């Protein structure tokens, strides 16, 4: 059954099925019913991680080192646990920035640098070529073994067969042609390949099923279950060592190193980035992948050990353990299972080669060839209207050359290594992207220079410690290079660099290359501040939230310019369609209605980025957009605003609030002070005015007496009387001012005691009796029978009473003046009223009379009757003792000054 032609036909039939699936998925996507819009398909497509390395190589590795094949799958499990953070963020950033590959990602992060994109592409291409070689080796070996059925013959050493008789050569050509047909059927603006993803998910199912069938056959068909397999292994002296791992620091160290390496690779391999990030249709798909992809890895590894043990038990040392998956069914003449195993291996290889070379060809085209063509201003580029054909051509050539380079490496060095060792070289190469990518996602300080230096340093160390030794081992370089070091310098021995021994070559390379890489990345990045472009991209990547990207264009370009540009790269129909969609999104009927604004430029850039990469798209659009230059200061301002100020804003807000309160308080205090100042000025001017009036009359009359000796005695007496009266008024005034000042400043002396208020009132009236009698004023006093005690200063109360009484006396008419004094108890207080029949006080003056130097009546016409301080002082005194003083009056009805004081109940009975 397993003749050559059967194997070939089945292989091509399988490739045909892949085509059909891709075609069907593309059709469904065009119809709006995408197959890959499913988290399960996403998780399955991630299993492109499992290549022939897993399918054939894991068994080989297990046969050599026991459990040593597992770190490669434990690492991705751990990464997926972090996938919730890292992968989702990468997806979000990539979508927002229209990232098309890992080279694009790095270039875009560090200021859209074409140089960086190119460097990443070169590293990826050189680093991944051994990995492609691995697939070619596995497929061609499996084919060679299969067609010699039923004999089990190990294939001849690679590179020994003539080119045209080397099956690997044909495998390479078929894979290249298939990938070209498959992956570059048309130019997609978003660089997404629905059909490819669907086919890859299908391949993941196929290879898992195939491996399961072989595993179940070996475990339960040949042997009697897991326990039986392990029992037999224990019984064989050759195999007991596989049951444990070497218990040494180096062994655990390399275990940890491989785990770490695979953690990085599952994110950074170009094909993983393509599937996990670029082809991701929905960020939420990551949720299921977090556990489904590790579960896939778990399942595909369950039967590795039984197959390895079975192979070791069954075959002599001559059979390569990397082929056990195929040779064990063969040895038992299970043709169907054998063919299925071959298809599983083919599926693993094609999946890897398709995605890897498509991802790499995108990078080569967008980040290497196009920038170079643009830079050289190739005339053809400007002459041709539709460049989409050129882009496709570049990619096709890139795919062909990549697979061919894989074949060349296979011829050169492939046979010196087992499958896994070849793959690990590629892992170590792509691990060099880790500082730039992971650092770029979480650290804003990384600069273009730092990323360049880090990548270069790490890559050079990788070449020196891993790639060149692989050439040396296969005889392409002199062996002295390995044993004696470069130029015979012993410390430069590539796999014991600087004398570091005891590590396996992968751990050794990883240690030195990442040391150099991270060191250079950090060192150079920290040498200077990120410039404006780097800083703005850093913000987009590090602060990626669920929001639209910032409109980075600060000018616009017209549809008339942008549409032809896009047409040249996407093809006229596709470009026109995209622009029409954009116009509809913005609510415009026609494409020509689109304004020449930054948003249109942004849209066009995104569109182009899908076709030629973000760095090239930037350059193309920049040539059209009349952009206002974005100054460093402006960018720094924006960044400051966005990051630093926001971080402190809460704090600042609190502080400014406090400050505002303090300011308000200060302002109030200041206003009060100013008011007081004004009042003091008023007071002083009033006081000096009041003092001058009596002084003037004293002076005038004194001068008259002095200058005129002829004044008669009567006149003289009258004048002297005036002088004495005015002098008295002056001293009274001064006393009252002092008194007032003391009261106001709180420095007045009080002798507080229990005072019988009616007695005080009576005594006051008594003391002024003569004055009233002189003016002919009738005074009536109405006092209660018993004593009413208040707590106050007797002299001060007397002062108040005299004040009120003399005021009343002043204002009553000369003829028929009448003053009534009454003391009454009202509840808990006592009310004293001094009633007169004078002119009364107008309503508006009733409060004014209690102000300093203010008197009732017309100030301009009426002669002043007192100092103007009596009432204010009285009010102060009464208020000091907890009472109040007020006046009730109406013009022409007389005035009634009353004060009220709380009764001091000292236990004495009152009636």
């Amino acid at each position, binding site marked *: 059954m397993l003749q050559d032609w059967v194997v070939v036909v089945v292989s091509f039939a399988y490739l045909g099925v892949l085509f059909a699936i891709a075609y069907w998925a593309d059709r469904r996507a065009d119809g709006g019913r995408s197959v890959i819009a499913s988290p399960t398909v996403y998780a399955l497509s991630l299993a492109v991680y499992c290549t022939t390395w897993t399918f054939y190589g894991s068994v080989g590795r297990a046969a050599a080192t*026991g*459990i040593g094949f*597992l*770190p490669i799958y*434990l690492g991705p*499990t*751990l990464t*997926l*646990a*972090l996938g*919730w*953070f890292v992968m989702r963020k990468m997806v979000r950033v990539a979508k927002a920035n229209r990232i098309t590959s890992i080279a694009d990602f790095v270039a875009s992060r560090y200021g859209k640098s074409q140089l960086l994109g190119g460097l990443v592409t070169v590293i990826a291409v050189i680093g991944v070529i051994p990995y492609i070689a691995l697939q070619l080796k596995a497929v061609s070996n499996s084919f060679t073994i299969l067609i010699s059925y039923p004999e089990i013959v190990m294939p001849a050493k690679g590179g020994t067969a003539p080119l045209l008789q080397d099956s690997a050569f044909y495998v390479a050509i078929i894979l290249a042609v298939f990938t070209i047909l498959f992956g570059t059927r048309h130019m997609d603006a978003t660089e997404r390949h629905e059909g490819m993803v669907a086919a890859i998910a299908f391949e993941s199912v196929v290879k898992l099923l195939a491996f399961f069938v072989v595993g179940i056959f070996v475990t339960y068909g040949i042997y009697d279950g*897991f*326990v039986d397999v*392990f*029992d037999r292994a*224990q019984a064989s002296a050759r195999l*007991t060592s596989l*049951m*444990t*791992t070497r*218990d040494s620091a180096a062994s*655990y160290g390399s*275990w*940890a190193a491989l*785990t770490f390496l695979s953690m990085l690779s599952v994110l950074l391999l170009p094909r993983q980035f393509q599937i996990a990030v670029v082809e991701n249709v929905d960020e939420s798909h990551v*949720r*299921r992948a*977090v*556990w*489904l992809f*590790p*579960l896939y890895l*778990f399942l595909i590894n*369950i039967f590795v*050990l039984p197959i390895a043990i079975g192979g070791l038990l069954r075959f002599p040392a001559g059979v390569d353990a990397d082929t056990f998956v195929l040779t064990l069914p063969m040895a038992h003449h299970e043709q169907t299972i054998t063919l299925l195993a071959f298809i599983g291996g083919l599926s693993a290889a094609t999946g890897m080669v398709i995605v890897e070379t498509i991802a790499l060809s995108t990078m080569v085209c967008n980040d290497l060839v196009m920038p170079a063509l643009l830079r050289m201003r190739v005339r053809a580029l400007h002459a041709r209207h539709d460049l989409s054909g050129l882009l496709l051509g570049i990619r096709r050539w890139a795919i062909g050359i990549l697979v061919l380079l894989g074949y060349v490496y296979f011829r050169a060095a492939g046979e010196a290594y087992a499958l896994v060792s070849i793959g690990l070289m590629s892992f170590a190469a792509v691990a060099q992207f880790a500082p730039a990518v992971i650092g770029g996602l979480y650290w804003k300080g990384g600069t273009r220079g730092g990323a360049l230096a880090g990548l270069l340093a790490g890559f050079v160390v990788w070449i020196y410690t891993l790639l060149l030794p692989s050439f040396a081992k296969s005889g392409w370089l002199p062996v002295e290079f390995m044993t004696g070091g470069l130029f015979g310098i012993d410390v430069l021995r590539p796999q014991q660099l600087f004398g570091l021994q005891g590590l396996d070559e992968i751990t050794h390379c990883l240690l030195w290359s990442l040391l150099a890489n991270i060191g250079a990345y950090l060192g150079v990045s920290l040498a200077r501040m990120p410039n404006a472009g780097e800083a703005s991209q850093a913000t987009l990547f590090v602060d990626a939230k669920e929001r639209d990207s910032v409109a980075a264009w600060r000018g616009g370009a017209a549809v008339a310019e942008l549409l032809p540009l896009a047409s040249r790269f996407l093809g006229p129909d596709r470009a026109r369609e995209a622009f029409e969609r954009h116009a509809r999104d913005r609510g415009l009927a026609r494409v020509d209605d689109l304004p020449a604004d930054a948003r249109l430029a942004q849209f066009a850039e995104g569109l182009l980025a899908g076709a030629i990469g973000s760095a090239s798209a930037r350059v193309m659009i920049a040539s059209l957009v009349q952009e206002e230059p974005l100054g460093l200061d402006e960018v720094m301002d924006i960044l400051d605003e966005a990051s630093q100020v926001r971080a402190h804003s809460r704090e600042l807000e609190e502080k400014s609030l406090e400050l505002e309160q303090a300011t308000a308080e200060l302002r109030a205090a200041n206003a009060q002070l100013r008011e007081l100042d004004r009042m003091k000025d008023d007071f002083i001017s009033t006081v000096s005015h009041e003092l001058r009036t009596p002084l003037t009359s004293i002076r005038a009359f004194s001068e008259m007496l002095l200058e005129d000796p002829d004044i008669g005695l009567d006149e003289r007496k009258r004048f002297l009387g005036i002088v004495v009266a005015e002098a008295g008024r002056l001293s009274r005034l001064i006393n009252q001012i002092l008194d007032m000042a003391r009261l106001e400043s709180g420095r007045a002396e009080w002798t507080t005691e229990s005072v019988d208020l009616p007695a005080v009132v009576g005594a006051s009236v008594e003391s002024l009796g003569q004055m009233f009698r002189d003016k002919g004023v009738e005074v009536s006093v109405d006092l209660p029978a018993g004593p009413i005690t208040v707590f106050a200063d007797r002299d001060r109360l007397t002062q108040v009473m005299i004040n009120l009484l003399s005021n009343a006396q002043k204002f009553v008419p000369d003829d028929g003046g009448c003053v009534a004094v009454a003391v009454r108890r009202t509840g808990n207080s006592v009310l004293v009223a001094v009633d007169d029949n004078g002119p009364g006080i107008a309503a508006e003056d009733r409060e004014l009379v209690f102000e300093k130097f203010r008197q009732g009546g017309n100030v301009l016409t009426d002669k002043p009757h007192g100092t103007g301080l009596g009432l204010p002082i009285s009010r102060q005194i009464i208020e000091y003792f907890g009472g109040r003083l007020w006046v009730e009056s109406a013009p022409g009805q007389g005035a009634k000054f009353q004060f009220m004081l709380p009764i001091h109940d000292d236990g004495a009975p009152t009636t």
Partner: protein
Amino acid sequence: MMRSRLVAQRLAALFLLGCLLFNYPLLALFNRDIEVLGIPLLYAYVFGAWLALIVLMALAVERGGRP
């Protein structure tokens, strides 16, 4: 948002747990030539811990993350 943060924290914790389980020194404890139910201890341990970790990860994202 709160729940999603909880999911993130659980996954971060599981990541650390995985780093611990699959490395020296815990790994060395199981690196013995003994069998558990006929399976070598080291394999039983690594595969068992691996599966447990995957189950926990599945529980963390699928049950905790629904808003």
